[in-house]
């Protein structure tokens, strides 16, 4: 209801006399802008479809694992029998593929429009440097990637606890998995973030960038698996039961002694090898099997190279952009 005597005055332009919070406010604002972009918040309905589908894809394997666990019943007996009992490490093996899809689709969406629409100079005339921009964009991407992997792991862990006979006892017996889950999650999210953002920095068109990322993942993975396939390996037949990390290998590879090093070039293996190392598991692919012949810390060194080289490429691309 109209208030008697109420009037609207146009006070004209008012100078701003409030607080100015400097660079950290700028970084924080850009971070949230990145998160909103990735999740489609503040955009049309179409922009939300992909993030929702990706979250469903990340959680689905965890739900399937929980259903399997529910059917297994006595987990301890199943482990003793050597049956497949899905755990957090297995989940990371599956979800890495979902994360690659996430990176392939969403990384070009995060960096591409800023360059395509020429928004970058507007950011960089504010109190932000090129390094600020890249680090903040990377963090926004990594946080969503982490949310993806952790959401599935949370479902799986809760499912494991509640499908066991004694949930509290399960938590007491398996608490050590939590730091492992957190650590490998960071390892996977950081690698996917840096690698896919680096590709997106060089390819503006989203479809092309996505094709390059998925293509490189599949083709390099296939080529490395082919080259490192062992024709004769004492442990090969039993490598999924035994632990080739601990036992001496006697393998004849198609490319001889180079095989373990070629195995380090497999994108999927980068995180698989760390996952196997942290959870003390057997390698899951011929490439990873070959890598297992190298000293334990080699996959860690390879991981650092796989993260630092794309990071350098990303920085190099933006350092040279003519604004």
């Amino acid at each position: 209801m109209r208030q008697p005597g109420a009037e609207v005055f146009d006070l004209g332009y008012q100078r701003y006399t409030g607080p100015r919070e400097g660079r950290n406010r700028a970084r924080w604002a850009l971070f949230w802008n990145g998160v909103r972009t990735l999740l489609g918040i503040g955009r049309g309905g179409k922009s939300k479809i992909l993030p929702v589908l990706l979250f469903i894809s990340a959680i689905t394997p965890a739900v399937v694992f929980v259903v399997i666990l529910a059917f297994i019943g006595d987990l301890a007996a199943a482990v003793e029998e050597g049956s497949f009992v899905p755990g957090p490490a297995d989940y990371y093996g599956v979800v890495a593929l979902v994360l690659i899809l996430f990176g392939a689709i969403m990384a070009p969406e995060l960096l591409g429009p800023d360059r395509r629409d020429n928004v970058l100079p507007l950011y960089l005339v504010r109190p932000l440097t090129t390094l600020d921009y890249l680090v903040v964009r990377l963090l926004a991407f990594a946080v969503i990637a982490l949310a993806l992997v952790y959401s599935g792991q949370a479902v799986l862990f809760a499912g494991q606890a509640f499908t066991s006979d004694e949930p509290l006892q399960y938590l007491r017996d398996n608490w050590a998995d939590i730091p492992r889950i957190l650590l490998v999650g960071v390892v996977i999210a950081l690698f996917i973030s840096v690698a896919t953002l680096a590709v997106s920095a060089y390819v503006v068109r989203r479809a092309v960038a996505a094709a390059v990322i998925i293509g490189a993942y599949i083709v390099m993975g296939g080529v490395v698996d082919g080259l490192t396939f062992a024709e004769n390996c004492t442990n090969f037949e039993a490598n999924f039961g035994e632990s080739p990390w601990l036992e001496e290998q006697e393998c004849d590879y198609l490319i001889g002694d180079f095989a373990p090093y070629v195995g380090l070039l497999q994108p999927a293996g980068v995180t698989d090898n760390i996952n196997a190392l942290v959870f003390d598991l057997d390698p899951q692919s011929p490439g990873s099997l070959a890598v297992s012949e190298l000293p334990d810390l080699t996959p860690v060194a390879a991981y650092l190279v796989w993260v630092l080289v794309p990071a350098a490429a990303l920085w190099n691309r933006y350092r040279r952009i003519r604004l």
Partner: protein
Amino acid sequence: MPPLLEARSLTKHYGRTVALDGVSFEVGEGVTGLLGPNGAGKSTAMKLFLGLIQPTAGAALILGEAPYDSPEGRNRIGYMPENDCLPRDMTATEFLMLMAQLSGLPPSQARTRAADTLRHVGLDEERYRPMHEYSTGMKQRVKLAQAIVHDPVLVLLDEPTAGLDPDGRQEMLRLIDRTARNFGISVMLSTHLMGDVERIADSVIVLESGVLAQEGAVASLTQETETLIIEVAEGVDAFAAILAERGVEANSDGNLLVIEHAKEEDYDTVRDAAVDAGARLRRLAPARRTLTDIFRGGPA
């Protein structure tokens, strides 16, 4: 207090190309036009003042600080680029809120400033529409709005009327004039359109081939000349003949008579001759130099 902008022997090389060669000038409050033909070094100067690129030698200072080395100082300047720079899928409100926060404003103040600024540039109704639906004129207004949303002391505008139709250009010039006069935000306007500068600028800096060609107040550069312009409605020939009889040489051009090197007493002669010839005077005024004349080395 340091000047808003200061170029000290400012030099920028791109490989062997010299974009700016030891240029020095200062910019104070009000509207300053940065004039020059394409390739004169205007955009390079702008980018140096914005901290987007580093000088090869010399210094580009904003409020006494080098923006390339001290990003914090950049929160008191605004920038409107010449080309398209708006994210297609964002609304004007969301974009302005982001730009305000990037200049250090907290979210609640950024929201208020975004709404106020869009209202001041005449985009109140359309602020929640994605910007790819905007016309060229509306996009120019958003570009200006994002440059002033954080209430800078100085805003740098790169060819702000480029691509606008005559009405849109007039509207944008009015808006820039309001920004300086009513909002109290000083403006540096880079353009190759001298009419824009003559219309709204207080002072002008002219660059040519990377060096400083002219600088000063627009009023003094476009001062009155010794050429007298007379416009009559009719009887121009009789008028010119009487003037010639009385020793004043006038060149006719349609209804115009132009007297070069007019002296003080010539004004009385013109007045009397107009009465005697029965010529109806429409205009009698000394000619002013235009910035075009200055560029072309025209009459002083």
